């Protein structure tokens, strides 16, 4: 599954990094870094991150 974050929307709230720390984290410069190719067994956590993001910046792209 592909994870996309719209960096024009992301405002470094870090919700995603709390819900799915293995996929998302905030770098020291406060900028979000994430894995864009995520194993299927983490889908539930990424979906939770999608709902937790206040900016609706995260989306899942199924191939």
């Amino acid at each position: 599954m592909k994870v996309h974050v719209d960096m024009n929307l992301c405002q470094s709230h870090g919700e995603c990094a709390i819900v799915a720390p293995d996929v998302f984290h905030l770098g020291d410069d406060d900028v979000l870094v994430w894995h864009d190719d995520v194993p299927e067994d983490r889908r539930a956590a990424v979906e939770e991150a999608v709902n937790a993001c206040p900016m609706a910046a995260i989306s899942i792209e199924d191939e």
Partner: protein
Amino acid sequence: MSTPRLDRLVIVGASLAGLRAAQSARKAGFEGELTLVGDERHMPYTRPPLSKDLLAGSQTVADTALRLAKLEAGWRLGQPAAKLDRTAHQLTLADGTTLPYDRLILATGCRARQWRGPGAELDGVHTLRTVEDALALKSALTPGTRLVIVGAGFIGCEVAASARKLGLEVTVVDIAPHPMLPLGAELGARCAALHERHGVQLRCGVGIEAILGTDRAEAVALSDGGELAADAVLLALGAEPNVEWLAGSGIEIGAGVVCDATLTSTVDADVLAAGDLAAWPQALADGQPMRIEHWTVAAEHGTAAGRNALLAPEERLPHTQPPYFWSDQFDCKIQSVGLPMLADRLEIVDEEPDTGRLIATGERHGRLVAAVAFNHARRLMDYRTQLAESVGAAR
């Protein structure tokens, strides 16, 4: 013990908390009838842009829609719930239709606090809670207009920032000694400096007596005898919970709908509450029930209540995440975690005077209860984790 029937889940309030509750119940496997009742005509939308990007023009109304994904639910929009009969397990809507439920989630949130002083009814006097409010306010924000904002809380401060960006003359009045009162005097002084640096006139420690004008607001009369000329006035006096419709239902009402840690009503295990409406025990405040008006709390509450509503009371999980909040004002992102308003000591632990970045911690009786950051997201995360661990929060 026989399991009670759980075919019908009804959610009252079709905004953030209500939507998240519906999504979470479906995700947890609920296959019965799911109905959302909302008195606004709109599908769920997000409010934070109403004082920020939508006002400033960098987002449209369409951008504020919350994504529904593939939610299967019935929607009763444009219709408030008027009465709750717990014995009959039934809601009555304002048009008289009834709606039976097995479990009910209350998520009717808040409205803008009204001010009933002289002149409150004049044209050009605004409050801000809904998308209609935001559009009305936006149409008044033309360059050169004089805007007086009453209330220097987060909405007042955010609108001040948006309005300055649009080239308005902005004055903010508050009876409190500094803006952003819950953040304490030291951080409040930094907020005041931020606004003054960007050309906002701040009048702290003074109240308003009246709004003057014949048809339209023309000026605001202050308690110190002064007067401020105004083309538009925003009353940003905080929010009050939409609880009146529950009168007579026997639901315990305190600061809001009083719940236990699992967001279950203290008087009825078939009724749960979520979001701005719910008062639930705060682990950081010795279990005292409090109502918290934060976006993330409403989202987390909805998720927890939707899941818990499907379970027997003894299986429900407590919601203990420390509250997280953000506010954007000019180039400053203010973030807080925990309960800064309860701190008896707020200490700035790191500050870069050149950039305005800072991080502060709040303690109560020597225990960490809050952290506040200005443009310091990464550092705030560390405190968020620490606070969550200190109260044993589980997700």
